[in-house]
């Protein structure tokens, strides 16, 4: 089967300094990939490259016909800590922003209906007119999940959707994702390996070299000297123990 997104020999980073080197990854239909790795290892960098927010230094990211074009069929849930919670915007408007470039909706009424259904489904219809600043962490995540899936994307990318979330909602969230996974591929960066492992189908371990971007005056010799290959490993049905072992290593 042709992958939805095919990443080949991707090298990408910031300010000419690579964070990820020679990454290979296929994202196929019905995939549920958990992305793990140390902080600064390049997890978010990988997501940003896929989303087109970072231009690759080299290598290619190829999209299948299904999701290609300027209106890429990719849903995105960013890290909530980057959201300005004092911004004057209502829950409804945040969710509606998920339809920015989509032509699939015929008119405002259809978008509104879809949003209302989604909010109802997610149990946040009653707060649709509230400002986002008034929400709890769990409510925020639900709102941003609604925004990410509003346009029925083929691929859903989530960056730490389990931060600021209590245990009860975390369970609901992963159950919701399991259902969504029947319709779309999911790539998920989590800060909590224990929970993620029981839901994801495969694990991608992204391990960049911290030294690469903490200092701005690193020479090429130094980069070579660290000799730190960035590995992205995808393997099926990882048992918990291997994950925990992996975690301790860092």
């Amino acid at each position, binding site marked *: 089967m042709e992958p939805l997104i095919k990443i080949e020999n991707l090298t990408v980073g910031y300010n000419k300094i690579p964070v990820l080197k020679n990454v290979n990854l296929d994202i196929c239909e019905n995939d549920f990939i958990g992305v793990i790795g140390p902080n600064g290892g390049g997890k978010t960098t990988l997501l940003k490259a896929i989303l*087109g927010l970072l231009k690759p230094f080299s290598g290619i990211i190829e999209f299948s016909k299904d999701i290609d074009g*300027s209106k*890429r069929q*990719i849903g995105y849930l960013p890290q909530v800590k980057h959201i*300005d919670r004092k*911004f*004057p915007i209502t829950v409804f408007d945040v969710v509606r*922003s998920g339809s*920015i470039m989509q032509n699939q909706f015929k008119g405002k009424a259809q978008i509104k209906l879809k949003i209302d259904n989604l909010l109802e489904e997610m149990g946040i219809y009653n707060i649709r007119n509230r400002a986002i600043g008034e929400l709890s962490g769990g409510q925020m995540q639900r709102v941003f999940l609604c*925004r990410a899936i509003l346009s029925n994307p083929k691929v859903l990318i989530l960056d730490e959707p389990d931060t600021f979330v209590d245990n009860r909602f975390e369970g609901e969230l992963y159950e919701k994702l399991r259902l969504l996974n029947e319709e779309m591929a999911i790539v998920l960066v989590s800060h909590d390996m224990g929970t993620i492992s029981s839901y994801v189908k495969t694990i991608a371990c992204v391990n960049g070299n911290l030294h690469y971007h903490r200092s701005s005056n690193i020479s090429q010799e130094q980069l070579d000297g660290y000799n730190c290959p960035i590995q992205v490993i995808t393997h099926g049905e990882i048992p918990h123990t291997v994950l925990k072992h992996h975690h301790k290593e860092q």
Partner: protein
Amino acid sequence: MNSIFELFQYNFFLKALIAAIFASISCGIIGGYIVSRRIVFISGGITHASFGGIGLAFFLGFNPLLGAALFAIFSALGIQFFTKVAEIREDSSIAIWWSMGMALGIIFVFLTPGYTPNLMSYLFGNILTVTSTELWWMAILNIVIIAFFALFFNKILYIAFDEEFARASGLPVALFNYLIMILIALTVVLNIRVVGIILILSLLTIPQATANLYTNDFKKLLIFSTLFALFGTISGLFISYFLDIPSGAAIIFTLVITFGLLRLVKYLTK
């Protein structure tokens, strides 16, 4: 109170009233955007840098507002360049352009032979001396701003709220940011005559803070800000006339008192 009605017979007062209305609309909308996006400080930098253009215009003898517009747009781009390309911290870049513009202005004014009588009106504003030509320019700016925000409201909102998500969705974020930066620069410049360089930040922030007491919806924030700005500028204009105090200061004083009172009312009634 016959005198209030007599006032409307004076051409200069009618012009001032129209200027107040135009200033309120442009500052209400643009200010709402600036405050929501937390770029008040950038706007302050652009405003003060435009003084350099006013000085240059005095020195070379052309229209000061044209000089101000050139410097405002140039400094807006300069701040972007310093931050993005030269990798200087953003707040430092702003401060550099802010102070450099003021310094250039002072040097040019100093070098200009003779006395520059209008200087104070650019620094602190004088709504009573606004000319017909300036009113036409303000009218055009208002139409452009209203049309731009009406046509692209959702896109402006989504970019302002979450720029990264907007970029990932394929919106031309850089283009929008660039256009809005130009609108901010022009808003600042054309309203300099109303409240002055030093005081213009007030029209861009105080009505918005007042509006924010009552709404957390972006569209309503822009509308309420405009209404509070209208109230402040028009009553400030009357206060200025009857108490014979400078108009810019009177307008800001009205805006601050309004905000303070309504904030207090909200606190007491909660």
